[in-house]
Structure formats: C-alpha cells, structure tokens
C-alpha cells in the first residue's frame, strides 16, 4: 500500500456499485474524488423525502426520480470528466448475469436487504470478482472484503432468523407494544383492507368458540344498511370488546397473567364523531390519495404525541371512515405500507387501543410507525465513514494487496480506545455450500412433504435462489424460466403438489438432489434423509437443513421465538424480504485478530451491547415483515407468514 492516491490501478479500474441510497451517495462521491474514472451504479429505487436527511446528492425537487440517475448527474457536477453509468433496475434482473459482473475489477455493495446481498455475493463468486460489502445502522457500521478462496464469502456465516412471535402471543396474550403492532398491522389491517381470501388468525378465538353472535356471517363485512361510523363502531366493539370477553372466558390463559379489559367504543366515545378541523368531504375532494390523513382531519398536529384512549378511538373510527370514503377502490388489495399515512394512523390507533386493553404503555404515531415499518435508524455521518472505508478496501483490492485486507467495525462506544476497529478477514468456511460447494443434508418426511414445501422453504427461503432447477440424477423435477414449453410447465406444476416419495423419480432417504440457479451459477447437492417426526415447536417447517452453517445460539427473549431452534440452518438464514439488523456480539475475550472465527453469540436486540464489539450486517433503508410463528398448542401447527 505504498500509495493509494490516484494510482494507475484506480484510474484504470472499472467498478460496480450496487445501491445508490445512504451509503451509495457517499460512496459515489468518495469514489469520484479518489480518482475513479469508470463507475457503474445499479439501484431500482426512486427518491423519497425521508432520504434527503442523508442522501445528500438528492434534493426535494428530485423526489420520485431514479436514485441511480440523479446521483450520477449530481456527481458529474463536481467531476464532469469521469464516466458514471446508471441502471435504474433491480440487481436481480437477468441482464446482470455473470458475464455482466465479469467486466468489473471490484463490486461495492451499499444494499438494504439480505436477499440482494446474497444474490450479489453469488454472482461475485461465480464471476470471480472481489466484493466489498457494507452496512450501517445509527452510529454503527461495518465494511468487509470478500475475495473468492481467500476470505470468507458473505454467506459463510449464519445470518440471524427474522424476528418472529408465536401466534398466540399476537392473537391472545400480547405483553409488549410490538405485539399489538403486529396484531394491528398483520391481522386487523390485513383483514379489513387486504385480500379477504388470505388466511388470517384474527378471529381465532371467537371462531373456535363457535358461538359468534353474528351466526356465521363475516363480522368484518360491512352490512348494507350500515353507515361507515356504525360499521367502524361494530368492528371496534367486536375486536376490542367482544373478542376480549371471549378470551377472558378461558380462565386457564389468565392464571399467571394480567387479565385484559374489554373496551367498547360507546364507553370511550359516547357521542358522534365530530371534526375539529376539516371533514371527510373535504378530504374526498383531494386528488392525492396519499394526503388523506386522519390527523389533519381531526386536528392532531404532533406525531410525537402519545394519544389518549379517546383520541386513539377517534383516530381508529376516523381513519376507517376515510378509507371507505376516499379509497374504497383499494380496499381488498391494500397491504400495509409505512409511507401510507392513513394506514399508519389506523395501525397506530388500533395497536394503542389493544395496548390499553392489555395494560401495555401507549406509543406515539412516530414510534408506532418506526416499529410497524421496521424503519432503520440512519444518519449521514456513519454512511460517510463507511463509504471512506469501502474506498480504502477497494483500492487495496485493485492493488491486490491481499495481506492488508481488513474488515472494519464502526463502533458507537470505543473498544480498546478504538472507534474504528480493523480486523483481519476470516478464511472461507469449508462447509459453506455457496463458496466451498459443500454438500448439504436435509432431514424431511418424504411421505408427507410436498415438492412445493421443499421449493418454498428450502430452495427459495434458505438457499436464496430465484430461478432454481431441481434435478434427481438426470431427471428434471422442477424448473423456473421464461422459455419453458407448456407441457413442461404443466408437468412441473403437477410435481409441486406431489409428496417427495411420489415424484416421477422418487425422492426418498438416501437420494441426492441437485439444485441449481443458472443466473447465480450456484449448484447445491442436497442429501435427503427421511425422518418421520419433527418437533412442531422447534422445527415448524417439518424439515431440517444442515451441513452448511451452524444455527445461532439461543434466544434471549421468551416472547421471541427464533424459527427452528436446534441445529437447523433455517435459523441462520432469514427469508426473502427480510431486513437484517444483525447484531452479533463477540465477547471481549474473543480473539479478534485470529483468522479462525469463533462461534459468536447473537442478539436480536440492538440496544445495550455497547461494550461489546458488534457485528452488524445492516441496512440503511428498507422494509421488513415480521413473521408470525404458530406456537400455541391449540393452534394449527404451521408456520405462517403474514404481510
């Protein structure tokens, strides 16, 4: 590393940046200033207002435009003579194949989700292009270098499981505000405004009791003779009043718990809804649906205020009303979106009313939005620091200065006097099926599990493949692609519904399956072991994949169940769309300079680990969905994912 300045290696380099968000803006600027001349940048996102506090290449007037394009134009203003090629596209598009990646000397990630990170990792391995990976949350950040065969790949170590909650905690025994949020967002909101045909556990208690006063009619359907307010009050009384009464009737549940209190709208809000400011009709007149807001309609100003039960009740009824008055067409197709003001208002109010019922402290809309939208904490300074570190590593990669590659942690609280802590990269994990092509083994009941279960839970969720081909010997069992013959598609569709042992080429204990993703150029061999029984609580998928990485250790919080404890890799690998906020504590004694990685502990909580080195693999932005896991003995035994 004799010289890092504008060397010929930097000038001649062709680099690919993936992501033009918080880290991306800083990175593009620092690359340009450091003398890089040929930069390609991929980002599928458009600019939002909440980006502007840190994504400094963007202005208010750019809201709605492509991040990659605007970032390019902004950087060319101070470095007009370099070449920046923007792609307003998803890095997973088939255009960005191994051939595409091969043209670059180094790939730099500033991504916001695990799925894309895994995808880029595989393409970099296949194209043999080194990857510099990064992530930040709040004041914490991390930069790592991945070079095939020399350092561990992005997937050599387990990623933590998504935060999941037992269904019964959500439906009947919430003890934290987040449980109320999950209930309001994934159950109530989904039931009222989402796809009616989706399975939903909202009524699990009352329908089990089968003494519903509505005699089988769908409580959540609006009746013909009902006005919106009557409908809203009926829903309110059903979910916050009646359902709680039904739940209370089960004495067993409340033996060691505080009994919730039923809440009825007439007790909280006896009169009719009245508006302090504006009204429904006025809101209806506006063309911009996103501007419809209960807070505006009710004259509530500060999103940081914690509303009273009465205020929450008014917001609940008013937002329901506004959905029907001004967004009726969307009802039935809505899914929760943190940028949908009305949806956030409804979910905040519903969660707070439920919290009041269960004696859980209420929260402001601002806080509720953060929890419901899983909003990542992000500041400009950490992104700037991380971008600087990425460029330093990128230059080392270009100079092939392998001995000096470092992974660097940005800490919030100094450890051994260090705020920026470099660590030698770890060696590749010999049992990593991604970079070491190590075979996997899968315990599964071949007489019960269908090929569909295998495709969804193993191939897509755990192996992170987008366009898989599944082969048993030379027999193709399943394939995804644009150019398939119709009879093939029919054949594969039929296979999906068959149990493994009854497939055209029977998959039983002892079978070796080959799973391949042509775009990622990744092939995994999976040895099938037949197993009759699975622990419904610990192995809810009914299958256990092993041989890759060890599962993280145990959970910390009783209320938080990690998916599949007990040696399954399902614990290690978050499913698609899962945002990672991974904080792996490495205890003080851990030898951080050694190249062999010790098994780190995992913390699902980002707070209070301040004196430890934290490994985080996080994102600057992005969304998440919480996974609800059926754990109650009386509930159906299956894992469910709710939007």
């Amino acid at each position, binding site marked *: 590393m004799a010289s890092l300045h504008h060397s010929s290696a930097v000038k001649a380099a062709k680099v690919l940046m993936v992501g033009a968000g918080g880290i991306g803006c800083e990175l593009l600027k620092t690359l340009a200033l450091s003398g890089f001349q040929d930069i390609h940048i991929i980002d599928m996102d458009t600019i939002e207002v909440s980006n502007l*506090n*840190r994504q400094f290449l963007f202005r208010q007037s750019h809201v709605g435009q492509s991040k990659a394009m605007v970032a390019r134009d902004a950087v060319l203003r101070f470095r007009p003579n370099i070449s920046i090629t923007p792609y307003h596209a998803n890095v997973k598009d088939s255009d960005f194949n191994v051939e595409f990646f091969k043209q670059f000397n180094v790939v730099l990630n500033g991504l916001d989700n695990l799925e894309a990170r895994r995808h880029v990792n595989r393409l970099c391995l296949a194209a043999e292009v080194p990857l510099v990976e990064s992530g930040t949350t709040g*004041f914490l950040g991390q930069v790592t270098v991945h070079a095939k065969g020399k350092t561990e790949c992005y997937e050599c170590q387990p990623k933590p499981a998504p935060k999941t909650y037992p269904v019964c905690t959500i439906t009947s025994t919430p003890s934290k505000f987040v449980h109320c949020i999950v209930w309001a967002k994934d159950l109530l909101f989904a039931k009222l405004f989402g796809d009616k045909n989706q399975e939903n556990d909202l009524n699990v208690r009352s329908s089990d009791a089968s003494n519903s006063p509505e005699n089988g009619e769908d409580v959540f359907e609006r009746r013909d003779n009902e006005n919106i307010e009557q409908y809203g009050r009926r829903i309110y009384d059903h979910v916050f009043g009646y359902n709680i009464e039904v739940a209370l009737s089960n004495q067993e549940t409340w033996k060691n718990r505080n009994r919730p209190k039923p809440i009825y709208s007439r007790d909280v809000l006896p009169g009719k809804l009245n508006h302090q400011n504006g009204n429904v009709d006025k809101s209806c007149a506006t063309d911009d649906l996103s501007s419809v807001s209960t807070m505006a309609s009710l004259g509530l100003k500060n999103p940081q205020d914690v509303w009273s039960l009465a205020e929450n009740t008014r917001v609940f009824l008013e937002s329901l009303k506004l959905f029907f008055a001004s967004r009726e067409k969307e009802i039935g197709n809505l899914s929760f979106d943190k940028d949908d003001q009305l949806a956030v208002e409804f979910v905040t109010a519903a969660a707070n009313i439920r919290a009041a019922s269960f004696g859980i402290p209420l929260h402001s809309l601002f806080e509720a939005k953060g929890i419901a939208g899983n909003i990542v*904490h992000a500041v400009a300074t950490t992104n700037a620091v991380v971008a600087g570190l990425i460029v330093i590593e990128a230059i080392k990669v270009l100079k092939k200065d392998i001995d000096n590659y470092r992974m660097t942690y940005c800490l919030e609280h100094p450890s051994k006097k*260090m705020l920026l802590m470099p660590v030698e990269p770890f060696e590749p994990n010999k049992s990593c099926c991604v970079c070491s092509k190590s075979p996997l083994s899968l315990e599964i009941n071949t007489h019960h599990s269908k090929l569909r279960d295998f495709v969804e839970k193993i191939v897509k969720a755990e192996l992170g493949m987008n366009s898989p081909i599944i082969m048993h010997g030379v027999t193709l069992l399943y394939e995804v692609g644009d150019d398939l013959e119709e009879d093939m598609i029919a054949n594969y569709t039929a296979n999906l519904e068959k149990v493994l042992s009854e497939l055209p080429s029977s998959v039983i204990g002892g079978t070796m399956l080959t799973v391949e993703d042509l775009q990622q150029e990744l092939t995994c061999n999976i040895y099938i072991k037949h197993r009759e029984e699975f622990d419904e609580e610990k192995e809810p998928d009914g299958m256990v994949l092993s041989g890759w990485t060890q599962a993280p250790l145990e959970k910390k919080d009783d209320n938080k169940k990690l998916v599949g404890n007990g040696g399954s890799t399902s614990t290690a690998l978050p499913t698609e769309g899962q945002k990672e906020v991974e904080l792996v504590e490495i205890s003080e004694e851990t030898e951080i300079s050694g190249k062999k990685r010790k098994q780190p502990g995992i913390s699902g909580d980002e707070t209070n680990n301040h004196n430890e080195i934290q490994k985080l693999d996080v994102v600057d932005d992005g969304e998440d969905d919480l996974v609800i896991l059926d754990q109650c003995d009386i509930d159906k035994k299956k894992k469910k994912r709710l939007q």
Partner: protein
Amino acid sequence: MDGEELTEQETALYDRQIRVWGADAQRRLSKSHILVYGMKGTVAEFCKNIVLAGVGSLTLVDDRAVTEDALSSNFLIPPNENVYAGKTLAELCCNSLKEFNPMVRVSVEKGDLSRFGGDFFDKFDIVIVSCCTRMTKKLINEKCRKLSKRVAFYTVDCRDYCGEIFVDLQKYIYTKKKLDENNQPTTVECELQYPSFQESISVPWRKLPRRVSKLYFAMRVIESFEEAEGRNPGEISMEDLPAVLKLKKELCEAQSMNESHIPNALLERLVMGKREFPPVCAIIGGILGQEVIKAISGKGDPLQNFFFFDAMDGKGVIEDISPPNV
C-alpha cells in the same frame, strides 16, 4: 426541553435520524450555531454532515482563492473557472451547502479569523478550525475559553492517509444510557473536564502512556517545523524532510523520548502527502460530525480529547492527552 415542537416538515425530513438521537436532540441541533475555518476536503465533508443533520446555522470563514489543491478533495466546488473565478473558498462552499438543506442558514464571514474578538465567537456554540498554524489554534481556543458561555472548540487536519481531531469541551456535562443493577436502562449524568489545546500539547511526552498513537507525536513535529519556519500549514515539501527529521531528533532529546517512537517513514508520508486523501476526509469528517452532534445534544460519550486515523493500519483511535491534574 423548551417545549418548542419540531415542524411537520422537520419531522418528515429528519425522520430517520430522530430515530437515532430523539426529537429533543433534533430541537437542540436546530438551535445550534457553528463556525468553521479552513474549507478543505475534510471540513467540506463535516459541513455536509452537519447541514444535513439540521443545525440552526453554519458560518464559513476562508478568504483564500481556489487552488488545484483545494479542488482535489472538495466536492462542494465545481471545477469550472467560470464559476469559481473571483470567489473565495468560503463563498463557493456556501453556495453548494445551502442547497443541501433549505432549513439551515449557511453564511460567509470575511476576514482574518485570528483577529476576530471574543464577541464574534460568542455567537457560536461550536468552533472548528482546520489548516491553520499552531499559533492560531491556541489563540482561537483561548478566545473561546474566555467567554462566559461554553463554546466547544475542535481542530481537524488530514494529511496523506492520516487524520487528527482535537476536542475541547471545557467542563462538559452530559447524559448517557446505562443498565442499572436490575439490568434496566437508566440515564446517568456524567461530567468531563477537558484541557485546552495548549495544555494538552504541553504535557511532557515521557509522561504519556507508552502506547500513545505515533501520529500524535508526528503531527506535533510537523506543526513545530511549520511554526519555526514561519510556514503556512501544508507549505512543506520533500526538500524539508532532512530538516524535519533533525527537528524530530531534537524534540525527542528534549522530551527524553526514544526517537523510534516517531518513525521516519511516517514523517516522510506527512511531509510528502500534504494533500488530503478523500476517503480519509470522509472518515474524519464523519467522525467529527458525529462528535459535534453528540456535543450539541448532550447525549452519549464524547471523545476525549484526540482522535487519530491512519488508513495504513485502518485504526481509528481515541487518545486522552491531558495534564495529570486535569
């Protein structure tokens, strides 16, 4: 706090960072006034960070004209002579910074910083100086210290792949989160007493812990050389290296410190690489931004009282260089 609420516009814009430091800290930020001197790459990075964060006002002082050096790592100045001709560094940076956040007042003050009186510095909460002589650093620091209100003082400099931050928060009281004996989070109040720049650099070297960053000593040697020769910061070249090495020897002898504590190779890098290295500007400007945000919000442990980064080993280290009695 004082009950004044953030506007809807502020809450929307600052949403992600309010989730990091809270609405209270955001309100304090929006009422803070910051002065910077020396508009090179590192300070440009810092200014970007602090304008995005939403401080009340930022005042820039730097009457120098644009040079190739100044352009090399400063993304605030378009490299177009038609744009920069006839304007000072501060004016050019001001124009760009204003665009980053319409809610922050960015302005330029002309003149020689070392001639400004106490009443000038009294208008600010934070004063940051960069690329100035040791004399100027001491002078401004003392002026800030004489004021009745507490004005935080920082110096920041980057050379080659190295960066240095000095912090003087005087007597500083802040809160931090801790776990109590029942493992419940609580807030505790802490107090720190900082030495001035003069007091810090006067601490005899042999009294410092053995493993103090070599960069600390190397930066002092360069500083001493520039002062003795009457140079402006950065007015140094390879031809000066023998004289710098000679000065190092003398200083080490006077301080009874082994010469090997300051590697010649490091001094050579600092003499040769007077130009800033953009990734280091981003890192040092980021850390400084973070520290200033902490100092304004009164939340979290601030660094005491030097920070060093060297891209060659990748370490970002905090050193406490205080006289024993402070």
